């Protein structure tokens, strides 16, 4: 066996020699103790107390021996503590040196008598969060500062101040100056105003644009569509339905009056109320514009039904309104309130019966606004707006001839007829016509308050509407619930034309573009358009306008500019229709 022997598995470490040593680290527990013991033993040897020395030495030796024999530091530590205590007791009678050592021993014992302990708390998991604030809004601004600019600005300011001084009283001067300074900054302050008011104008435009989109085809028809088939229809025409206007709050209220605004040709007012004597509720006054068919521009509500309304020709923002309870009121559209600006009351002489029609007159001699109203209580009253109050003047009382009654004390009482409609002559200012419930039409003058100029035995039932021809100064038209429409010359007692329309006629209106065209609406939902120059006996167009059979048409009005008519019905809807070319022929 002097060769190499292969071993299958070799440990990384192969121990060749191991010896158990007895070296102790100098700085460790035992090492320090031993060195102290040795030094005390040495000090004992140097002292003169032999027995103590020997005992100390022996004890020291015993200690050392004991220390050597054990291997566990901890148990040693405790035993050495006991041993050192014993040693301390022995050394208690010693001189200064031992106490120092004892103190050292004590310290050492405490120092080494520790246990290392470590623990780790739970760390909360970390998360990254990042955020960026919005940058502050910035705007650009540019200007030039030149001596002439500065001079101009000062001069302008001084001029403004002088002007304001000239206008205002001294007290208001200070306030006005401050206001002006603020006024200068209006353009920049506007940006500080409420966001909602800024948006309101744009919102309105947006609403109209969206409506135009929705009703685009109708708008196109309104503007451009001309019914080509009219040529083949042998003089007859049609009415093309355009927009339909309705509002939820007026769903059950009948349309009692419609009128176009004289200034804005697309704005019209609709009065809502109820014709039914039993069912009287509140009234509404809405103003629609053709540009926004889905929602009215202005909404006013009132306690009693609106029966009639009229726009002032010169002040297109003023509307006179007559109510079912006999009151009249003036609404001012420029003011933002929903209440009338002026209203009559029982003490200011309101009518005792529903007011069927109101019409503005020219300003009187003191430039006060005034209008007339006719009512079932038989009075025609002129209302004048004097110093913010409505003052009434009875113009005429519609006395019925031959029906004087004997009152309780022998008085002769005149029964009054009930006026239902009236119209003023376009040229002759004082001349007007009144239609009554008895079917008579009175020709009256503003100057004579007790007598009529003439009486026409017009109809068998109440006269619903009278109207002068806008071009023919002698001709007027009347319609009635007795199913007829009659055309008169006011100098002749008998009608020139009579049309029987098979149903009670609600309203009749002359066309503004021709002296021979007029339209009538009947309660069976039909609209009739006549042109006397083409066909004297028949309507050019008879068309069912309102779908439901239960719906009666109440009013019709021609638009002064566009070839459309608006028709109001009992359900509170207003339908606009376009006249086909055959109906629109202008006289030559």
């Amino acid at each position: 066996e002097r060769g190499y022997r292969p071993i299958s598995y070799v440990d990384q470490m192969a121990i060749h020699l191991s010896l158990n040593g007895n070296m102790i680290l100098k700085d460790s527990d035992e090492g320090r103790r031993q060195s102290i013991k040795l030094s005390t033993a040495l000090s004992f040897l140097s002292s003169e107390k032999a027995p103590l020395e020997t005992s100390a030495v022996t004890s020291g030796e015993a200690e050392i021996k004991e220390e050597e024999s054990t291997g566990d530091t901890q148990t040693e530590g405790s035993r050495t503590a006991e041993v050192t205590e014993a040693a301390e007791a022995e050394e208690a009678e010693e001189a200064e040196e031992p106490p120092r050592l004892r103190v050292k021993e004590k310290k050492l014992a405490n120092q080494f008598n520790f246990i290392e302990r470590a623990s780790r708390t739970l760390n909360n998991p970390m998360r990254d969060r990042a955020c960026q604030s919005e940058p502050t809004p910035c705007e650009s601004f540019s200007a030039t500062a030149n001596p002439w600019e500065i001079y101009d600005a000062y001069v302008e300011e001084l001029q403004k101040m002088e002007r304001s001084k000239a206008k205002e009283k001294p007290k208001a001067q200070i306030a006005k100056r401050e206001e002006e300074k603020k006024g200068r900054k209006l353009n920049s302050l506007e940006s500080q105003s409420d966001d909602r008011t800024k948006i309101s104008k744009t919102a309105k435009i947006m609403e109209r644009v969206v409506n135009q989109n929705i009703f685009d085809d109708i708008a196109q028809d309104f503007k451009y569509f001309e019914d080509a088939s009219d040529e083949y229809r042998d003089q007859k025409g049609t009415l093309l339905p355009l927009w339909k206007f309705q509002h939820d709050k007026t769903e059950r209220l009948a349309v009692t009056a419609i009128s176009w605004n004289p200034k804005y040709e697309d704005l019209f007012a609709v009065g809502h109320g109820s014709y039914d004597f039993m069912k009287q509720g509140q009234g509404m006054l809405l103003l629609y514009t053709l540009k926004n068919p889905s929602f009215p521009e202005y909404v006013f509500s009132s306690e009693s039904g609106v029966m009639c309304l009229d726009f002032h020709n010169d002040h297109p923002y003023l509307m006179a309104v007559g109510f079912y309870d006999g009151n009249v009121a003036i609404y001012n559209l420029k003011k933002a309130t929903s209440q009338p600006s002026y209203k009559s009351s029982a003490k200011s002489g309101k009518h005792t019966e529903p007011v069927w029609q109101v019409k503005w007159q020219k300003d009187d001699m003191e430039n006060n606004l005034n209008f007339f109203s006719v009512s079932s209580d038989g009075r025609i009253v002129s209302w004048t707006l004097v110093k913010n109050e409505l003052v009434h003047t009875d113009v005429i009382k519609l006395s019925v001839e031959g029906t004087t009654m004997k009152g309780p004390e022998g008085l002769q009482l005149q029964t009054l007829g009930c006026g239902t409609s009236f119209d003023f002559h376009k040229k002759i200012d004082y001349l007007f016509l009144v239609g009554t419930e008895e079917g008579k039409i009175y020709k009256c003058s503003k100057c004579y308050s007790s007598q009529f100029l003439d009486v026409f035995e017009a109809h068998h039932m109440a006269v619903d509407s009278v109207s002068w021809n806008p071009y023919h100064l002698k001709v007027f038209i009347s319609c009635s619930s007795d199913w007829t429409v009659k055309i008169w010359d006011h100098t002749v007692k008998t009608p020139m034309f009579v049309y029987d329309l098979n149903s009670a006629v609600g309203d009749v209106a002359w066309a503004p573009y021709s002296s021979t065209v007029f339209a009538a609406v009947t309660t069976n939902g039909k609209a009739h358009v006549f042109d006397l120059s083409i066909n004297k006996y028949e309507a050019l167009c008879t068309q069912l306008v309102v779908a439901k059979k239960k719906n009666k048409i109440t009013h019709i009005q021609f638009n002064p500019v566009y070839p459309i008519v608006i028709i109001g019905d009992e359900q509170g809807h207003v339908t606009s229709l376009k006249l086909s070319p055959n109906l629109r022929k202008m006289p030559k």
Partner: protein
Amino acid sequence: MADTGEGKKEEADYKRLHSFPLIRHTDMPEEMRVEAMELCVTACEKYSTNNESAAKMIKEMMDKKFGSSWHVVIGEGFGFEITHEVKNLLYMFFGGSLAVCVWKCS
């Protein structure tokens, strides 16, 4: 001679008349505007000969009161185009010939 005399008198007159602080353009809120205007007037009157010190005073006071960082330009003939934080601009005339522009932009 009378003309030039009158002309000088007019000049002095308008200087006197036009020396009140005139705000040309601002979008500050009311109290800020009033304070800033007062401050500008005080500074311009104090440092009537030295625009730089006046501007320095205005800028430091504005920084202290309304936060950093403000910019101030005082002069008699300049044009400018600036970007300012909204509601933090004051452009005014004073003393008949001075123009002061104060704006905040960080």
